[in-house]
């Protein structure tokens, strides 16, 4: 019994230590952000590797999610004779929820895990240490540009996901199921509010981008310098990010639409 309580205490303390370290790490990264402006080239390279290279998976997923929404939406709406409202349903689902959430989940799996593995390997092969010994601060040279790149790429990817999803819904709804093309877009335009829907989705994707990148970069920095350590850190990035995204989505949705 005492052992169980002790181990519970120990694991809680360990978790708190990790939280503390993650927070201090974040502060250090934030304090190094001036490098992003001074040497924007470093960030551009990272935007390419976390953002541009995630484009394919985001576009393909967005297309399929939009097409499924088109189908499911149509099947439900047509019972009420409201098939014309399909454009609005597809767009709202995408910009409010699916765009930010699914993009963030994919982003965690594609870019987050890659970031963690890259940084973990840099740590294991002493590249970060070597950089420190060359008087190059890895927070500035390595962590800050990656952090900003992830944080900037996520909302853009979410926007692309939603846009492609709308087109996917169009392909199925208009192209295959015969919804009127004009009605699809005019419905969309009339029910989607810029502040309420689009902006709230953008805010979500910014928050998710921040959290996923933070987790990914920190896990890489904090990884045990062994192959097992990197594997564990990469898994942790995907698991913790996914849970954080879903949990935060609930809280943000509550904040944005709950009080309404």
């Amino acid at each position, binding site marked *: 019994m005492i052992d169980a309580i002790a181990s519970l205490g120990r694991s809680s303390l360990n978790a708190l230590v990790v939280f503390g370290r993650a927070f201090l790490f974040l502060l250090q990264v934030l304090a190094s952000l001036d490098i992003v402006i001074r040497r924007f080239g470093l960030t551009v390279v990272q935007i390419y590797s976390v953002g541009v290279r995630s484009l394919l998976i985001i576009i393909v997923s967005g297309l399929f999610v939009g097409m499924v929404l088109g189908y499911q939406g149509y099947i439900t709406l047509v019972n009420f004779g409201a098939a014309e409202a399909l454009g609005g349903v597809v767009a709202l689902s995408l910009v409010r929820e699916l765009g930010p959430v699914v993009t963030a989940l994919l982003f965690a799996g594609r870019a987050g895990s890659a970031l963690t593995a890259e940084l973990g390997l840099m740590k294991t092969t002493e590249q970060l240490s070597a950089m420190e*010994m060359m*008087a190059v601060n890895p927070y500035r040279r390595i962590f800050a540009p990656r952090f900003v790149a992830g944080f900037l790429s996520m909302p853009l990817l979410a926007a692309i996901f939603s846009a492609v999803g709308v087109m996917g819904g169009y392909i199925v709804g208009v192209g295959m199921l015969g919804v009127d093309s004009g009605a699809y877009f005019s419905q969309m335009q009339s029910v989607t509010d810029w502040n309420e829907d689009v902006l709230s989705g953008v805010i979500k994707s910014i928050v998710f981008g921040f959290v996923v990148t933070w987790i990914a970069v920190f896990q890489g920095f904090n990884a045990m310098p062994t192959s097992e350590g990197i594997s564990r850190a990469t898994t942790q990035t995907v698991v913790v990010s996914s849970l954080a995204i879903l949990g935060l989505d609930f809280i943000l949705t509550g904040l944005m639409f709950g009080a309404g």
Partner: protein
Amino acid sequence: MAEPVAEDSPHIVIENLRFRRGRKVVFEDLSMRIPRGQVTTVMGPSGSGKTTLLRLIGGQLRPDGGRIWVDGQEVARLSTRRLYALRKRMGMLFQSGALLTDLSVFENVAFPLREHTDLPEDVLRTLVLLKLEAVGLRSARDLDPASLSGGMARRVALARAIALDPDLIMYDEPFTGLDPITMGQIVTLIRRTNQSLGLTSVLVSHDVTEAMAISDHVVLIADGRAVDAGAPDDLRARASDWSAQFLEGRPDGPVPFHYPGDGYREDLLGVRERRDD
């Protein structure tokens, strides 16, 4: 402010250094002086904290007690800015080379120059080629670090470590895992670099033959202390029991063959003494 440093004063002074990692005491009371402009090797058995010592000198770790001065500056007390300024005058060669894997050989050597100077591209190119020529790898400049052998990676890392013309260079186990030819190349390079650039070289190693051959000064560490120090020949001549065991590679002696623990007999019989808490 760093005090003016006399030509003949030691480059590195370590006094009563204490350092522990978790519960393990790495250094108990370590003191040593590393003379300027010479090759000094710190030798000790595996796990005696040799690499840790280099990290403490480089300010990557902080001591739990005692002091380390490099060039008259106390490392643990420097602000980040000053520490980084000091590190620009230190080169460090990691055992693995620690080359940046996303950059070519050329860019690896150019890395510290690009980070710390604003040299025009053609000057930078000349400098990098000079450094690469010094380690014999000028023609390998376009290779990827992944395609280099261990010895080549270490030579590129050496070129990178001397890119900023440091006054001090530290080598972490430079002889480990090399074939005889590469070993010879590295030994020559360390000696030649030391002479031609007039810098202080600090090696940590447990390869007795090479280290004794190359060094002007040797420090032996064990159990968290410096147990012996001096010129290689003196050390051989007046070695203590422990030093003799280490230098001659005897399997048993003051350093026991068996990892300390319960008695063999009790262990086999399954009798474990419970220690009083």
